[in-house]
């Protein structure tokens, strides 16, 4: 059974006149790594808010169609119930940490769930180690760099041990090095713990290598939904204006000039490899 299932989903914000997205049909399987991309204002963030019930419970508005997450009907279950299955990481790391130490922040979700203290301590250490923030345990959040803050935020979601982690442009406030570290952590969660990952992202250069699937949204609709390589080389993706990786661009340029490589590469190391293969042919 799919872990997230949406049928004919349409949503309008309370203040909006036209729907933020419409007729979305979507299935995400357990253990998948899915990237959602598309130009700003296409409804990506809004769609993510449906995955843990912030829409419709926190935002109000009109949600039509069906959405089930881990077998729960989102419309019928409150956010705190769905939050135990779906962890959310937001754009701005600063606004996701509200305690005065990283440790206390990671504990926050577990405290809310009434987990016993001993268990909380165990889970904090575990989550901090996975995200590489164990050494920041007692530091106040405002002393940390953006990348460290975002990893701490991921740790605090991870500690709640969700089935799905949804990350809404987690790197847009970060420098490339910080972003790369975040992607490494997410990639590891997906590979080693087979956690389902849904990532909204523009910087496809750094992240498409981890993805099983890329969904392109445009103007409130899902435009493309499929294998990363197929999506990224397609002409539609270019026309919508998503950030196609440089390595894939190179493949397209070469193809245009009559040189065809074995497969479209997604990152520079892979590009090197396929070019070498082509040269030795």
């Amino acid at each position: 059974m799919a872990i997230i299932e949406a049928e004919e989903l349409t949503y309008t914000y309370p203040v909006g006149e036209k729907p933020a997205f419409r007729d979305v049909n979507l299935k995400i399987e357990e253990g998948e790594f899915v990237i959602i991309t598309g130009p700003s204002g296409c409804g990506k963030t809004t769609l993510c808010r449906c995955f843990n019930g912030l829409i419709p419970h926190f935002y109000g508005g009109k949600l039509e169609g069906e959405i089930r997450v881990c077998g729960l009907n989102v419309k019928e279950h409150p956010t705190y119930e769905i939050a135990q299955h779906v962890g959310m990481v937001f754009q701005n790391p600063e606004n996701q940490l509200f305690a005065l130490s990283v440790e206390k922040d990671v504990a926050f979700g577990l405290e809310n769930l009434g987990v016993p203290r001993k268990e909380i301590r165990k889970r904090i250490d575990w989550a901090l180690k996975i995200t590489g923030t164990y050494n920041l345990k007692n530091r106040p959040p405002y002393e940390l760099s953006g990348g460290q803050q975002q990893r701490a935020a991921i740790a605090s979601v991870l500690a709640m041990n969700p089935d799905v982690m949804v990350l809404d442009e987690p790197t847009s406030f970060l420098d490339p090095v910080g972003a790369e570290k975040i992607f490494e952590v997410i990639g590891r969660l997906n590979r080693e713990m087979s956690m389902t990952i849904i990532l909204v992202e523009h910087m496809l250069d750094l992240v498409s290598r981890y993805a099983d699937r890329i969904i392109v949204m445009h103007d409130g609709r899902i435009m493309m939904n499929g294998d990363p390589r197929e999506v990224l080389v397609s002409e539609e993706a270019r026309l919508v204006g998503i950030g196609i990786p440089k390595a894939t661009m190179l493949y397209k340029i070469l193809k245009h000039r009559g040189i065809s490589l074995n497969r479209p590469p997604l990152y520079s190391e892979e590009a090197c490899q396929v070019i070498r293969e082509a040269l030795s042919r």
Partner: protein
Amino acid sequence: MSVFDGFKFRSISSPIHQLDPRAKFVYVCVLFAVAIMFNNIIPLLILFLIQIPIVFMAKVQKEWMRSMKGSAVFAIMIFAVNLLSLYFYAGHETFTSILERSLAMTVRFIVLVQSFSIFFLTTSPDMLGLALEQSGVPYELCFAFTTAVRFVPVLAEEAQTIIDAQKSRGLEIESGNFLRRIRNYIPILIPLIVNAIRRSLELAETMESRAWGACENRTNLYVLKIKTNDLLLILFSLLLLTVSIYVSIHVYIPPLTSLLM
């Protein structure tokens, strides 16, 4: 570095930092009460001196000095006002006794600032929130309190950014008369407030996503327990209070000047 650094919590490990906030609160309350009980200079000076070893035990001498320096301006003002008003309205007193009483008022103010400074320098807002929570204050209020404290440095930084941005567009902040200067701050306050509201919405979203309100009896990572040191401090505070009450009723305190002469 500003005066406020003399009151801002520093995370250091010291016996004073490890004390229960509730015990420290009792101590501060007693000091306040005692300081207000007396208006002679000798007991107030004793109060001032009692606290100095505590400052050194807490290893916050530098920050404490800063709070003292910051309050110097107010102390001088209090001294001057007292001196003038006593001089003009209390005709039958000698000048030395007027001087001494004004000094006593000033020392009282310094004692109050000092005990406040020690309390906030050595008590983490997290622990303070926890103390409130364990004293039966609803969790929502305690959470609002610690979160507000957490965002003070963030908002301060944001305010600075906005000031710089508006200045670089030609806003003159430090010009004009008093009213004009207040008006100058409007282009800074509006973006600051709008941003703060936006920030609070994002915070609310995050809280919702971390199962806020999921169960009635939430657990807490930390628990406060009254330890021996806390008991000692409370005992000392109560002793100080009883002795002070006794002294203030039954013992005549001579003025400092008569002792010196």
